[in-house]
């Protein structure tokens, strides 16, 4: 076993001591290494790590500002914010996201749409940012989550304000709605201003006044632990509430107009002649804009899209209809101004008009015509087509187009709403540009009674009525009268239609007799009036009628019947309110459209009377 006979304790001890000394030296060197490392971390790089530990601990959380309210002229709330509870998930705090989603599905029943949206947002969130899964929980859902919260790590129930429209269907197109910010909008937005905000104005006033309504984002600096749970608040910079909007609109008038349209499809706009303020603006049918606020379901959205009444379609700004006879006061004024007619000029109306050297007969709506001597007054009161065919052809399309534009046809009105359509005021340039064919004299004939290529929006009808009422004041219509405390002064008109006052008198007198005259096309609404109305009825063809055929409403489908139109203002002596309205497939402006306007006028006058009483 032993390769030496005896152990040598002295030698072994010396060797052991030497080895132990080496080991002690190594221990010292390695300890020095450790110290150097801790010195490096704690002294040399101390600053970096302080910053890093602060970044760990302190989180900046945006606080969304409260969106501004929208009120009518009397302070009635049209759009407000209500407390709602929403369910969000902080992924870092959940142990297993898929298991959590499965649990939530079992409790609440998640649909694919929600999940898809959630996953989309998940991909672009910041660490520890709660990602919303369902907004506006019902009370039952809140209760279910409250009971189960302990076994759902990562779930966060937060209270936030949700936009609410108390008069949703009454104002759906006008107010528009807010909705979740989508992928298309996101890159366009200021990431700082929208850091705490999930929704943005999508349509209507909510969109056009987004900047004013939004407000300024606030921040809170919070101390969080590693799982993102807030331990305490360090500092808070309060958000600035968005500005409230006050409208010219009177909700009572709006309701009357909405109800007056009944079950018909159509649109009505009432303008304050003196300021251009919108007093009422209805597109019927409306829809429940509250559905869109928290994300409309596919089913509800499809139902709205599929409805033959097209409730999502804003007829006021986007519906383009032939104006029909409602253009006659404007073109009558043009005929006087251009001198092709005088107030006294009369024509013979055999019931049709024929262009020189043409066989084609342009018929008057009244079989047999309006008689031997038809002047401007009678032509407007009885809506004589032949007179206007003749006047239009004498003026020519260039003058017609020019005056049409002065009254607002074929041009955007400049209202403070998005997505307004301009309509069409045809001209030679328009036709060669769009249709690629030259202008024919027959086109002029059609245009002179508001048919053919001419298209207008209901808003443009109201604007034309307002310009007639104010004797030429050009004012862009305005919905908002006040932003916060700042009054938006309408100021002087943006322009004037220059004209001889006798010409204005003649046209307005004729419009008055449309209602008040014994042969007026709208005399039906004159009964019991204690103020005066000036108006003009119109009928717009939906389907063409072949030469020699007759229009027989009873044989046409409801949706193929003529549209009924009406423009009017009141009181005639000192006009305050102007209305343009259309009832789709209402057939006759006189019997269908005019009574609706009368109801709105009556309400306006009654409300004015109440206000005067209150002032005294």
């Amino acid at each position, binding site marked *: 076993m032993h390769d030496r006979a005896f152990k040598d304790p002295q030698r072994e001890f010396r060797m*052991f001591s030497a080895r132990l000394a080496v*080991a002690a030296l190594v221990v010292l060197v390695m*300890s020095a*290494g450790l110290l150097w490392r*801790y010195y490096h971390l*704690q002294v040399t790089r101390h600053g*970096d*790590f302080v910053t890093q530990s602060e970044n*760990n601990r302190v989180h900046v959380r945006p606080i969304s500002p409260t969106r501004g309210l929208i009120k009518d002229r009397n302070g009635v709330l049209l759009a407000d914010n209500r407390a709602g509870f929403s369910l969000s998930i902080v992924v870092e705090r959940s142990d297993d996201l898929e298991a959590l989603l499965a649990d939530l599905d079992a409790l609440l029943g998640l649909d694919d749409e929600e999940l898809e949206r959630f996953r989309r947002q998940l991909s672009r969130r910041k660490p520890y940012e709660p990602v919303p899964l369902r907004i506006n929980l019902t009370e039952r859902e809140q209760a279910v989550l409250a009971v189960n919260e302990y076994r759902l790590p990562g779930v966060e129930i937060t209270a936030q304000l949700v936009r609410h429209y108390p008069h949703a269907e009454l104002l759906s197109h006008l107010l528009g709605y807010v909705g979740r910010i989508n992928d298309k909008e996101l890159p366009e937005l200021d990431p700082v201003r929208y850091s705490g905000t999930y929704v943005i104005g999508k349509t209507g006033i909510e969109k056009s006044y987004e900047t004013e309504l939004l407000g300024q984002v606030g921040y809170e600096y919070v101390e969080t632990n590693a799982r993102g749970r807030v331990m305490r608040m360090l500092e808070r910079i309060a958000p600035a509430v968005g500005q409230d909007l006050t409208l010219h609109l009177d909700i009572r008038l709006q309701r009357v107009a909405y109800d007056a349209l009944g079950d018909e499809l159509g649109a009505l706009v009432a303008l304050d002649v003196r300021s251009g303020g919108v007093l009422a603006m209805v597109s019927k049918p409306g829809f429940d804009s509250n559905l869109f606020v928290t994300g409309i379901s596919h089913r509800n959205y499809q139902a709205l899209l599929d409805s033959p009444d097209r409730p999502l379609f804003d007829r006021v700004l986007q519906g383009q209809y032939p104006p029909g006879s409602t253009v006659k006061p404007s073109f009558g004024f043009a005929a006087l101004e251009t001198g092709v007619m005088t107030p006294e000029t009369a024509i013979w109306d055999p019931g049709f008009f024929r262009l020189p050297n043409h066989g084609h007969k342009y018929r008057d709506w009244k079989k047999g015509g309006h008689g031997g001597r038809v002047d401007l007054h009678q032509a407007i009161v009885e809506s004589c087509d032949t007179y206007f065919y003749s006047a239009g052809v004498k003026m020519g399309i260039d003058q017609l187009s020019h005056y049409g534009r002065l009254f607002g046809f074929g041009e955007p009105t400049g209202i403070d709403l998005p997505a307004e359509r301009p309509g069409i005021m045809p001209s030679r340039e328009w036709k060669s540009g769009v249709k690629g064919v030259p202008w024919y004299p027959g086109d002029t004939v059609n245009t002179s009674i508001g048919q053919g290529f001419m298209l207008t929006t209901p808003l443009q009808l109201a604007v034309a009525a307002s310009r007639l009422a104010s004797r030429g004041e050009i004012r862009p219509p305005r919905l908002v009268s006040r932003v916060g405390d700042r009054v938006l002064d309408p100021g002087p008109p943006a322009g004037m239609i220059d004209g001889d006052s006798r010409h204005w008198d003649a046209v307005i007198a004729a419009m008055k007799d449309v209602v008040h005259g014994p042969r007026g096309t709208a005399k039906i609404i004159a009964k019991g009036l204690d103020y005066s109305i000036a108006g003009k009825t119109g009928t717009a063809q939906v389907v063409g009628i072949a030469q020699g055929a007759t229009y027989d409403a009873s044989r046409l489908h409801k949706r193929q019947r003529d549209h009924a139109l009406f423009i009017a203002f009141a009181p005639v002596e000192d006009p305050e309110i102007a209305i343009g309205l259309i009832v789709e497939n209402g057939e006759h402006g006189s019997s269908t459209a005019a009574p609706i306007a009368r109801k709105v006028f009556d309400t306006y006058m009654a409300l004015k009377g109440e206000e005067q009483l209150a002032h005294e």
Partner: protein
Amino acid sequence: MSEFVRRMRPDGSGLYGGSRWQRIHLDLPLLLLVLITCGLGLFVLYSAGGQDSHYVTRQAIFMGLGLVVMVVAAQVPPRFMQRWAVLPYGAGILLLIAVVLVGVGAKGAQRWLDLGFIRFQPSEILKIACPLMLASFLGRQHLPPSFKHLALALAVLLVPAGLVGIQPDLGTALLILTAGLFVVFLAGIRKRYIFGAILAALAIAPFFWLFLMHDYQRQRVLTLLDPQADKLGAGWNIIQSTTAIGSGGLDGKGWMQGTQSQLDFLPESHTDFIIAVLGEEFGLLGVVVLLSIYLLIISRGLIIALNAQSMFGRLLAGSLTLTFFVYVFVNMGMVSGILPVVGVPLPLVSYGGTSVVTLMLGFGMLMAVGTEKKRF
């Protein structure tokens, strides 16, 4: 302090005079240093455990138990230890085999033996039984050991290290291996063998890396080289612990004021990573104080080794002391990001009963060696 330690003579003479302490086989300087470390450990643990007395109470009980074990172990005569060293060694090997056959797993590794009332890791026994066995064997031989004895010693070492390594618990296997190699080194192994072993280790390292290491083990080494590569995963621990230590600065954020520790950014803050809590809350100052105490303990252990009555006592005391330093170095190194993360607790400070009791057992054996009666 060092003057105090140096003048202490293990035979009980010196400052404290008389042989009262020697008669009850306790080494006063070591005992005092151990008690100071325990007190410091409880103090840091209270903060690290979320200011909850739960961990502190349990740890204090473990320490009390450990002290009893220490006092009992100190009474065992070293010659008796040398004679019966094979018993704990053999028992440890058998238990390791049992772990392989009927062990309980946790986190993908089979390390535990469930005895019904207690679960424990037999590998802990080997941390002491292995150097004990080697010291016992080599202490009987002519030194420096011959090649044959060396080969035998290596076999004695590699069997338990291998059994622990396949659990797999690479960290503990390496610690057992280190403790044994310290004995071999102190026994005066020839320099050419040392260089040869280093060359051989370098030669098999790539093979080891490619075929023997598990993915998670490789991952730990890679993480050390670039913690930022997987911030929220493997790199998280190291990023958070270095941030905690670094942000502590010179004098720290104050007791229970460490944001990294108190807000749960620091993982394992009351066990393996507790030095980061100390570093954050007491700064470099706290780290230096703790390291100094450790070095005093090590100095005392080396003095005991130097003055031991037999070669067995020298080898055992030297190995136990150096192994203690390895625990300190590996733990402080891994938490500060210069060593891969292996499960080594900070001696007497990290929470954990097994570690405390095993360490106390070692100190008891050191005291037994230090207070052995002179044979001549």
